[in-house]
Structures are given as structure tokens and as C-alpha cells.
């Protein structure tokens, strides 16, 4: 696990070009399958850095970008056959920011197809393997971004989180990942799946790096009409927080044991209480109904006309669209588009979609109430340790693994996952949840914990 600080130390005595080349060689030998496309221009950028031509807060630092974030001139696939050969004509807002700050974009990371999944097993480009056990999943949907950080294949990474897609792989790979407040980071150039829920967010190997990357990507952008126009600056606080354990968000016993060890660590500096989210039992169903409904609308654009998978010959439009989509989409994407179409169809709208939006009100109110009593809330990020590849074959069983992460997206509040150690050699993640635009508080608690357990979370070598 390489931090920005460590990378900068190496840059003092070594050429950036050589370091990036070494990274590329490592990625090419790697069994993780964390990258879909490498950016060969990164070497040219490294040369510019060595000539002293690159300035900025991320000058010379390698960043991996999830493959649903557009990069001008660099293939962006969403891990789908549908976009296998798609070359975006523009950069996402976050990519512009990275470039302005001198970052070196090394490549595009593997993910679940169109970010629909919890394990990266739905990728058209093959599953991402867990750096701590190659027979297990790295989590999803930003599995490549999580795995490349734990596997020394990048220093920073961008992910996106619709229902846990940053926090799950951060937890499973033992790295840090943050889903910002809805509206903090521009979604311009994020290929949409469920746009009222998703945010781009930073992933890193330390709290300090996570904060740095968030500072770079957060802020105003007129091209995203839901952008809040709020900047982010990290500031160290040394207050005593009141922390609420969310009673309903649990996990398997072995994960809970680790969780309570950390609660004891937190208690040394902060007050810990218990809180309850009474709407919790409806959140998962509501989340999936909203996400699938938005997906069915967002993914209607893939018709094989302007971009994406297409057929040799044009035929009647109904046949053409239906065949393009049958060939271009994988099974999980089809499942979600169809279920979304069902939930929005005549006669069912009120029962499913509208009802889910009502649950969103309940979930939002529950978080507001809990966050009035407490500064921050905590829970285990995932209900279990990383699964074996292929272990969860049934879609509904897979959806239920998101139970602790999706309520956060319904409410739109920020949350991060941080590593808190290992059980049976596999990483465990702690989820920290804050109020709107209170990322700073979350990161401060994370830093307190990291300072206490840094040796333990960096003790284990990857497989």
C-alpha cells in the first residue's frame, strides 16, 4: 500500500518515468485484473514531470479512474460489451480537476457492468480478485479501484458509489473510500446508472490521502444541475464527538467482534451511544426499486445509433434496438433494466416507485434524527468478510449484501469505509456516517482511529 507521502519521497531520488514504468510492469504481471485499459500517455506525462513542467497538488502522483468516468480520448467501457470500443470526446469534471492538479492518470479500473453489482463479477472483462485472497472477490462495483490500491498498483483512485460501490470494495480490500454528500462532487462525465443516488468519490491508502483527493474533486460545476457548489477543505479538529452505533446495521459474529474491538478504541477519545433507524427494514427494497427505475430510464440511451454496440445492418427500429441491447448488455444489467421498467409501468408506479420515494423520506428523517443526537454514526460496512468468487449466485441474496450501505445513498448523507484490521487474514471495514457536508468530521474520526491502529491495518502483506 503506497501513500502519497511515500510516493513523493521516492520522487525525490527517482525519476517519475521509472516509477510509472515499474507500476505498469507490475500491473501487467498482476493476477488482480484491476484495470481494463492502461493509459500509455501516463509515461509522457511522467517525462514532463521529470522535466519540471508539471505543477499542482497531485503533481506526479498516479491516479486510477473507474471506467464509468469519461476520459477524453481514452477508452471508457463501463465494463460492458455495449461500450467496449467507446472513446469519449470529453473529460469528466473530476478528470479535468485531476489534470489541472498535475495527477498522472494511469488507467481505467475494472468494475461491475454499469456499476451494477457488489463483487465485480458482472464485468464483461472478468472478475477482479481480492489482493488478500485471489479466490475471493474484491467487492464492487468499484472493485478495480479498491484492488489496485491494496495491490500497490496505484496510489490514489476514483470510484463511484450508488449503493455502496466505493465502501464495499474499500472494506473488502482493506483501503479507505468515501462517498461524499450528494451534490458535493460534480457528476458531469459520470456515465449514469441511478443519478439521484450516485456520487463520485475518492479511494486511498490513508485518511490524509483520501482528504487530499476529495479536496481536488469537490466543488462547483455548472454542468451538473444537482451540484451544490460547495468546496471541501480538510481541517483537523480535536473535539470529543458523540458517536452512535446503528443498532440495525449488523454483520456476522466474526465481523462484529472486530467491530466492537474498534468501538473500544473509539471510546478512549469519544462518547459512544446506541441509535436506531426504524425505517431500516424498508431501505433495501426502496433502494433497489429507485435504482432499477432510474437505470431503466438512463440506459434507454443505448440504442446502437450514436455510440456503443451496433449491428452491421440497420433494420426496423424495434428489432434493431432490441437486438443491440440483447447483445450489448450482460445479464444483471438486463435484469435491472427490466425490473425498473416493471416498477415504472402502468398500474405499478404507485405501489413500487412512489412507495420507494416515501421510504426515502422515512430514511432521511431517521438519519436526521440520529444525527441530531450524535455527531457521527458507525456500523460495519459489510455484513460479512469477502465472499468466494461465484459464492453468491442468486441475485436477491447478492442484493442483500448491500443492506448496510444503501440507506446512506437514500438519505444522501456522506459515509466512508476504513480498514480496522483482519479476520482470518481478510480485511474488515468500519463505516462512518455523517450529516450533510460534514465530511470533515468523518475524516477526523477516521484519523483518530487510524493513528491508533495504523500498524495493524498495514501489518499484512497481500497475496
Amino acid at each position: 500500500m503506497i501513500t502519497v507521502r511515500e510516493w513523493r519521497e521516492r520522487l525525490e531520488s527517482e525519476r517519475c518515468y521509472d516509477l510509472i514504468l515499474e507500476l505498469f510492469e507490475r500491473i501487467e504481471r498482476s493476477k488482480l485484473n484491476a484495470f481494463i485499459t492502461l493509459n500509455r500517455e501516463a509515461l509522457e506525462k511522467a517525462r514532463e514531470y521529470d522535466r519540471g513542467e508539471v505543477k499542482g497538488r497531485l503533481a506526479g502522483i498516479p491516479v486510477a479512474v473507474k471506467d464509468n468516468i469519461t476520459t477524453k480520448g481514452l477508452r471508457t467501457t463501463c465494463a460492458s460489451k455495449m461500450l467496449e470500443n467507446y472513446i469519449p470526446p470529453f473529460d469528466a469534471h473530476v478528470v479535468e480537476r485531476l489534470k489541472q492538479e498535475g495527477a498522472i492518470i494511469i488507467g481505467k479500473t475494472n468494475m461491475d457492468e454499469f456499476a451494477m453489482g457488489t463483487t465485480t463479477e458482472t464485468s464483461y472483462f472478468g472478475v477482479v480478485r481480492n489482493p488478500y485472497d485471489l479466490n475471493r472477490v474484491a467487492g464492487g462495483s468499484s472493485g478495480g479501484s479498491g484492488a489496485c490500491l491494496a495491490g500497490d498498483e496505484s496510489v490514489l483512485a476514483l470510484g463511484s458509489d450508488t449503493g455502496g460501490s466505493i465502501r464495499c470494495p474499500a472494506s473488502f480490500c482493506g483501503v479507505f473510500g468515501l462517498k461524499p454528500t450528494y451534490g458535493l462532487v460534480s457528476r458531469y462525465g459520470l456515465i449514469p446508472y441511478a443519478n439521484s443516488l450516485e456520487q463520485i468519490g475518492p479511494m486511498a491508502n490513508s485518511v490524509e490521502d483520501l482528504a487530499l483527493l476529495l479536496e481536488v474533486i469537490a466543488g462547483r460545476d455548472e454542468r451538473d444541475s444537482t451540484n451544490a457548489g460547495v468546496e471541501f477543505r480538510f481541517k483537523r479538529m480535536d473535539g470529543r464527538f458523540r458517536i452512535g452505533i446503528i443498532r440495525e446495521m449488523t454483520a456476522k459474529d466474526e465481523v462484529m467482534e472486530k467491530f466492537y474491538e474498534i468501538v473500544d478504541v473509539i471510546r478512549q477519545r469519544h462518547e459512544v451511544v446506541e441509535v436506531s433507524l426504524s425505517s431500516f427494514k424498508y431501505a433495501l427494497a426502496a433502494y433497489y426499486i429507485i435504482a432499477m427505475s432510474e437505470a431503466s430510464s438512463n440506459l434507454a440511451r443505448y440504442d446502437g445509433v450514436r455510440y456503443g454496440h451496433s449491428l452491421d445492418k440497420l433494420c426496423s427500429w424495434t428489432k434493431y434496438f432490441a437486438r443491440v441491447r440483447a447483445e450489448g448488455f450482460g445479464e444483471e444489467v438486463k435484469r435491472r433494466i427490466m425490473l425498473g421498467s416493471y416498477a415504472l409501468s402502468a398500474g405499478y408506479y404507485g405501489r413500487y416507485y412512489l412507495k420507494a420515494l416515501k421510504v426515502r423520506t422515512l430514511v432521511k428523517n431517521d438519519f436526521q434524527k440520529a444525527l441530531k443526537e450524535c455527531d457521527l454514526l458507525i456500523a460495519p460496512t459489510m455484513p460479512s468478510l469477502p465472499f468466494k468468487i461465484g459464492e453468491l449466485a442468486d441475485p436477491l441474496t447478492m442484493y442483500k449484501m448491500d443492506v448496510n450501505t444503501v440507506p446512506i445513498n437514500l438519505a444522501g448523507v456522506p459515509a466512508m469505509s476504513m480498514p480496522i484490521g483482519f479476520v482470518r487474514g481478510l480485511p474488515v471495514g468500519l463505516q462512518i456516517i455523517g450529516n450533510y457536508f460534514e465530511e470533515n468530521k468523518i475524516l477526523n474520526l477516521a484519523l483518530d482511529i487510524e493513528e491508533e491502529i495504523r500498524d495493524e491495518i498495514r501489518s499484512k502483506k497481500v497475496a
Partner: protein
Amino acid sequence: MITERDVHHIANLAKIELKPEEVEKFRREFQKIIEYFNILDEVPEEIEPTYHVLPLKNVFREDVPSRSLDREEVLMNARHVEDGYFKGPKIVED
């Protein structure tokens, strides 16, 4: 109950062609998932829905022209292009 007829109807709405063997598999899965979704029947109707979590208002900007993408860039990912335009499938059947 989700029937095979329902699956065909949904697939048609979503414009996704299904193979015969996919229909029964999706039917079984949809049945199970929708049964799970029915937990929401317990939620009272009188709650206000939340479409957006932040109290955002419409954003206005000055109405001034700005550069858009070049035609060449816009067309570069399309397979069927004619005279600088996208060429789509026929929408009126012969």
C-alpha cells in the same frame, strides 16, 4: 404472480430481445425479487415522497452561446453515418 407473458411484456417495454431459455429464468428471479419488494406494502400511503435529498432550486445561467463538441467528435463513435449525420433505423415499417 409474474407470468412468462409478463416477462415478454417487460422485455418489450425495455426493448431487450430475450432468448426462449432466458424467459423462464428471469420469470423465477423476478417473482422472488418482487415478492421481496412487496414489504413496502406495509408503509403508510400518507408520507410525502422525496424526489431529491437536497433542497435544490432551479439553476439559471446567462443565455450566451458557448462552444459545443465538433461534429467529427460527436460522430466518431457511431457506426452508421451519412453526410455528417447519424443514420438511424427505419421508424416507419415498409
